[in-house]
């Protein structure tokens, strides 16, 4: 169907070429030019300037904090996502549909609202926060708070990738495993995991990109303490406010670099997933 429709458009060369050039124009002005501009600005003071900016104590700390948050967020959401996807695709229980809907809450609310929610709950005026303050536990305006909101905004990614795939694959293979006497752990390791591994990696890549790039929610709970609670995206804004455009774009170029790597990994994983699907289709035929 689709190929025939596109052929029909292609029958008139001017339609085809004007559509192609329009698309290229939009992609160029909206995506490529700004991306290039980030790197041009970052190297505005030459390579030496770039290196000076990047080895700045506060920039280095922002990088390490961002890496720390991502490194903790990924395993947490990996376990949570797999657990949740397994639960809703392999078992029938009351409230299952509701649970699937609830997973999307972090996508549905604005990150700023998410940040405020945590602040209202765990801030010193919140009902959990005032108790925590008495125990001398500081969650908000320190890195655990940043981790909490990051986990919140990224928690649907892995589950969202797994659920459709696991639904499609069905539970026949696992049932076969059970009849052959596999334990729960064996079942997961030998049957489920190989089937979902590429979707899992895909989810992790998205989680990572978002965890490193999150601004809104983190901004609310960070407190903007330089060298302590300043993540890379917040650092970009701070430098820009400081009239340090080159420094800001240097940090921004790191984030853009992460984005580019994410895109490559994502394309690779998509290609592997497509291949796996083809193999599955051939087997089922």
């Amino acid at each position, binding site marked *: 169907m689709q190929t025939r429709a596109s052929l029909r458009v292609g029958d008139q060369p001017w339609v085809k070429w004007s559509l192609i050039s329009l698309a290229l124009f939009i992609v160029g002005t909206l995506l490529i030019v700004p991306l290039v501009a980030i790197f041009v600005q970052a190297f505005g003071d030459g390579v030496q300037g770039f290196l000076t900016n990047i080895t700045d104590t506060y920039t280095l700390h922002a990088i390490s904090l961002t890496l*720390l948050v991502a490194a*903790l967020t990924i*395993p947490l959401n*990996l376990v949570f996502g797999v657990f949740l996807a397994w639960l809703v695709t392999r078992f029938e229980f009351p409230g299952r549909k509701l649970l699937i809907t609830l997973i999307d809450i972090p996508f549905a609310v604005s990150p700023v609202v998410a940040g405020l929610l945590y*602040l209202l709950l765990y801030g010193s005026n919140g009902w959990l*926060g005032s108790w925590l303050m008495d125990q001398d536990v500081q969650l908000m305006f320190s*890195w655990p708070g940043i981790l909490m909101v990051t986990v919140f905004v990224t928690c649907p990614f892995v589950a969202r990738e797994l659920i459709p795939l696991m639904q499609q694959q069905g539970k026949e293979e696992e049932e076969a495993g059970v009849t052959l006497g596999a334990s729960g752990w064996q079942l997961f390791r030998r049957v489920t995991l190989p089937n979902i591994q590429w979707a899992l990696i895909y989810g992790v890549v998205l989680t990572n990109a978002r965890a490193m790039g999150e601004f809104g929610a983190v901004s609310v709970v960070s407190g*903007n303490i*330089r060298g302590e609670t300043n993540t890379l995206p917040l650092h970009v804004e701070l430098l820009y406010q400081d009239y340090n455009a080159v420094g800001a774009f240097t940090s921004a170029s790191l984030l853009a670099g992460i984005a580019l790597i994410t895109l490559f990994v994502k394309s690779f994983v998509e290609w592997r997933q497509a291949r796996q699907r083809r193999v599955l289709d051939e087997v089922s035929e």
Partner: protein
Amino acid sequence: MKLVKHAKSVALALAIGLGSSHSFAAEQTLLNSSYDIARELFASYNEHFAAVWKEKTGNTVEVRQSHGGSSRQAQAIIEGLRADVVTYNQVTDVDILHTRGKLIPADWRDQLPNASSPYYSTMAYLVRKGNPKGVSNWDDLARDDVSSVFPNPKTSGNGRYTYLAAYGYAQKAFEGDEAKADEFVKTFLSRVAVFDTGGRGATTTFVERGIGDVLITFESEVNNIIAEFPDHGFEVVVPKVSFLAEFPVAVVERHATRNGNLELAKAYLDELYSEDAQRLLAGFNYRVHNEVVQAEFADQFPSVELLTIEEIAGSWDDAMSIHFANGAKLDQLQRR
């Protein structure tokens, strides 16, 4: 295998995280919650203070900085950010620490000299090369061939100061005739080309988009802008009458006591009034109270008649309700 790897990375990350928070515990640390764009000022002052403190007590002190819009910064402290001291650019944002959080005493303005404002600034104009429109005072900004740019008084303290400066000028010029003053400010507001949400946005509009003949912002900011865009040949004009923009400071006593930093926090703010520190502040283009330093920097700061908030509106509370509340004077005058 995979799980083991993950467990390792978690452990490693935790170690890094805990390690980094522990390594600072060996020395005294102080947290200063400040407004944005004050980073370089306090980076420089903190170095100065650390040296003074080391000489006085033998202790090493590391001052950590939190920067942001000062209303948001104050809110964060009320929500539990454990800052020892605040150094803001708006009196109302320090007041809120008393009224909403009971974190500082009601008489915080009496705790330090000059109403707890160790340095001050005023609203000045940045004009294009050679001042082609010949702008020198507020009445020029009401001319129909001059358009100005400054942040929206609704969303920005910077913009609020500009509005009050213009209003104070009009009150003086028309000798307290409120109807005429209103009329003047109405014309003045109608000449504004763009209202950005914040100071930084207004700068971008003026410099990079080339809109407007005059950018109105803090005198202390103007030099930063000139330094960032040296090719534009911008010039500074300080009007004859302007608004006294105070930069209030206070010890957040509840938090400082809890952090065991009360003495350190007080010393940190006291030192701002010393001659050396005042010289340092003047070097960042802020006006200061120390007379010796004033004489040294006389060329840099043209004399200007500064109106206080008390003269213009009675108090900050009144200013907020008379001018900036919804449907108040600002809203009425902006209706075209």
